[in-house]
């Protein structure tokens, strides 16, 4: 219904405006309606301004900035209405080390609310997990789960 969408939009927008500067260490972002007169059909635009930069079309942002902006929106939506679990497949791939650290800092916080399953190639993200499952193919084409030793994290994954 119209009012429920308006309320969801307001709540997510407010949270997005808080989450974005957390992940970007500054800057600002918001959602905008393409048609405020027609809430039942209006589209949703993203406005994103990393710290110190001029506000321009979101298309001009870098690969990493786009990914981090999208992540801020996903986290904001999650904080408004958490799903019981959340699966993230290599969302940290385009991020540099500084941004991976900020991503993981925030992930640490929101993982108190729900379960997170995170697929990654990034060693910083691996270090942040509570447990690690290693998937291998000793026999090519055949997946097995193994224990992964990363400092203090060892998971003996065979049930």
């Amino acid at each position, binding site marked *: 219904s119209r009012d429920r969408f308006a309320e969801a939009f307001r709540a997510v927008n407010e949270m997005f405006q808080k989450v974005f500067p957390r992940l970007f260490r500054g800057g600002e972002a918001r959602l905008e309606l393409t048609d405020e007169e027609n809430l039942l059909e209006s589209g*949703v*635009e993203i406005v994103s301004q990393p710290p110190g930069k001029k506000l321009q079309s*979101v298309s001009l942002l870098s690969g990493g900035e786009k990914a981090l902006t999208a992540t801020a929106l*996903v986290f904001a939506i999650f904080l408004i209405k958490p799903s019981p679990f959340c699966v993230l497949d290599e969302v940290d791939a385009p991020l540099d080390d500084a941004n991976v650290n900020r991503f993981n800092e925030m992930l640490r916080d929101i993982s108190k609310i729900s379960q997170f399953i995170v697929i990654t190639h990034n060693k910083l993200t691996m270090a942040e997990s*509570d447990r690690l499952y290693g*998937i291998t193919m000793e026999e090519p084409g*055949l997946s097995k789960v193994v224990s992964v030793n990363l400092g203090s994290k060892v998971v003996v994954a065979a049930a």
Partner: protein
Amino acid sequence: MRIQRLEIHGFKSFADKVVLNFGEGISGIVGPNGCGKSNVVDALRWCMGEMSAKQLRGRAMNDIIFAGCDSRGPLGLAEVTITFNNDGNVPPQYAAYTEIAVTRRLHRDGTSEYLINKTPVRLRDITDLFLGTGVGTRAYSIIEQGRIGFIVSARPEDRRTIIEEVA
């Protein structure tokens, strides 16, 4: 409903049965390219009722049954079971169970089976269960590989649907 464990047997590259116990907090899944990490995500989606082979990177639904490799012949059955903890937020008919196990099977001849706590049910009962608890059905609870950028590059009308799911 928290996921307690995920069992995969015969689904995609998991020819031998594999068990993953997910606890609280952050569970990381790691390994080389092509080893099966995203296949774990596909197994979750499929067990929760995904009906589109394309959403699972296949061309036909039979693509998700182990097709064989150099050391093994193909299998005739794919089976995935997700076991949830009943944290109180479940439809009334399951309120008495401490655990709720959802199983989906596909045979190579095309026959499908769906079970809840080992009792045969219809696909409809599975999707209703998930809709009722909000598990995994939202567009933003599974972010697939390479898809995070779509939120930024999507058309405004498509981005709207993500907000609608919150409403």
